[in-house]
């Protein structure tokens, strides 16, 4: 079966006064129904920009977008990048939906949450407002809001952060979308609430058989919920693979560096953290060659200064495991173990 979403060579750049900001470059990935793909990266790595392009949410006058994002609908494939904006608008909320980091600014403060959910339902369903509100109560029940029939009349400010995120999820799922993009859905929440929301997302995915793209910077969250992951750095995917390989056989020095730089609650030895030196490059003037070179500990292992001149390709080094690095597999094995990391 074809994956539900296929992104092919997607690039997004923004012309600005200071120059062209290459926010995401040549991104390709796919997600199937029932599968969770994590897009991991630090701020400015291009993870949100990429998914907003898939949703057709960029202002086409402000952004240069190329490539394809194909939704394999029952009625046939649609490329959300080249399709008419009206066509894409009719897919949003129905075939693909999105939830955001900050539910307070994503919900309208003046309308009751029932009205807001009913409005989303009414876009694609025939029925009275009462039907919409009934559906809203069902959805709120489903996402675990106690006393849903009462709370449906309340306003966003009357809900706590975790409850608001549940409302967002209810609204996103009201039309039974096939793809859900969750952009840092738990970053603003406390850990005990985070685990509630992650569990809810997992349950909803099973219930609706959705493809889920989870955007996050938290490698702990990724390990818990994702089936596959893309690691992004400076607008490019640097590594993509099944989830266990990312953690136990990372194939890019950036991924190796990230895993060694995070303190872990389950490791009490108090080892010194291995920080990645320096900071990410500006997206306006990306260096020649590999974007990670200036922070990479292993670039001198590559002959002829290749890291400074040639942009590495995203190669499939082992089946299903892609990495954008000039190092050979043997060198990477060494890098993994010398980093004292997970391997």
């Amino acid at each position, binding site marked *: 079966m074809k994956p539900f979403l296929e992104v092919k060579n997607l690039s997004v750049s923004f012309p600005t006064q200071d120059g062209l900001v290459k926010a995401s470059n040549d991104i390709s990935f796919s997600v199937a129904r029932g599968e969770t793909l994590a897009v991991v990266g*630090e*701020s400015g790595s291009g993870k949100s920009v990429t998914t907003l392009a898939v949703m057709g949410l960029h202002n086409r006058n402000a952004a240069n977008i190329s490539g394809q994002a194909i939704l394999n609908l029952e009625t046939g494939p649609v490329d959300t990048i080249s399709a008419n904006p009206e066509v894409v608008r009719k897919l949003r909320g129905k075939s693909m939906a999105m939830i955001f980091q900050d539910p307070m600014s994503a919900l309208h403060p003046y309308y009751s949450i029932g009205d807001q959910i009913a409005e989303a339902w009414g876009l694609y369903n025939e029925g009275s407002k009462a039907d919409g509100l009934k559906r809203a109560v069902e959805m709120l029940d489903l996402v675990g809001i106690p006393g849903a029939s009462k709370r449906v009349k309340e306003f966003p400010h009357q809900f*706590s*952060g*975790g*409850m608001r995120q549940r409302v967002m999820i209810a609204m996103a799922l009201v039309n039974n979308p096939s793809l859900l993009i969750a952009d840092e859905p738990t970053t603003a929440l*406390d*850990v*005990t*609430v*985070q*685990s*509630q929301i*992650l*569990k809810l997302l997992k349950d909803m995915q099973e219930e609706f058989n959705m493809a889920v793209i989870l955007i996050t*910077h*938290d*490698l*702990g*969250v*990724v*390990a*818990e919920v994702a089936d596959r992951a893309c690691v992004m750095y400076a607008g490019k995917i640097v590594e993509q693979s099944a*989830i*266990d390989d990312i*953690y*136990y056989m990372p194939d890019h020095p950036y991924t190796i*560096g*990230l*895993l060694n*730089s*995070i*303190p*872990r*609650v*389950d490791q*009490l030895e*108090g080892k*010194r*953290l*291995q*920080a*990645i*030196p320096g*900071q990410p490059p500006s997206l306006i003037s990306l260096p020649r060659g590999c974007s990670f070179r200036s922070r990479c500990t292993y670039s001198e292992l590559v002959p002829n200064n290749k890291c400074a001149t040639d942009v590495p390709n995203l190669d499939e080094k082992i089946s299903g495991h892609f990495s954008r690095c000039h190092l050979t597999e043997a060198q990477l094995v060494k890098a993994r173990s010398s980093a004292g990391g*997970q391997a």
Partner: protein
Amino acid sequence: MTEPILKLEGLKKHFESTSGGIFNKKKGTVKAVDGIDLEILPGETVGLVGESGCGKTTAGRTVLKLYEPTEGKIIFQGQDITKLSRRQMKPLRAQMQMIFQDPFASLNPRQTVGTLIGATFDIQGIKPLGGVKQEVERLMERVGLNPEHVNRYPHEFSGGQRQRIGVARAIALKPKLIVADEPVSALDVSIQAQVVNLLDDLQEEFGLAYLFVAHDLSVVQHISDRVVVMYLGKVMEQADKKDLFLSPRHPYTKALLSAVPVPDPIKGRSRERIILSGDLPSPMNPPAGCVFNTRCWKVQDKCRVEVPALLQIAPNHRLACHFPEPAA
């Protein structure tokens, strides 16, 4: 035994909440911090953790007397500073400093880095050897900033670099105690490790004591010697790091630890997870009895009536629970 650098005895900070308007009626009291007993030894790091609204930030600020404590005692280097006036506090401030969470809001955008760091000397009327400028450049170098950037403004630096400016400012007068309020939570992971390592190094170099306030248990676990877990203004449990993380006795500590995602998929899948129901109750109107009783999975009738006292259960291990978990 070494003399503690900081000692808190039953520290409380309550805020009166009023309705505003012409009558300004009293609505209630928010017990942001409701009794902390704590000793911090020189060169030691104590982590103060909890979820939003648990009072950890208020506690950190009250320790430095940025808020006036409502009750209890703050003893700094053997001196009771609870009742000291602002003026009396000023010379002591050189010994106790703070690092703030938001490196964007905590630096004056109109001042250069040189002015920002140098101001600490002016305020205390201290003339460092070799002059302020030279000392500022030395400090910048020490925290990993390029001293040539001394005339730049905060907006010309990245988040991680700004936090280094905050650190340079805090260590300028060689303090004995630094209260760090979420110093790395606004930073990206790869930068976070750089700042955590810097704090580690400075502690070793200057024998600093840290009160490290944070919500991220992974970071707290890494940096702390001892940890205090707060919930709705109350201390639930405090213990040496190993005891707390390997053998949490309070149901809240246990749930909190189990909720932290671990970057290890196989371990993550097999881990037993306690998912707490519901949200934090409002601190304006905390539940009677144990404040955690509305979300606790072990709750019994006693918990809804009687406030559990914070009792010493082992050396350096205090616990406030009627029905604690067995020791592991």
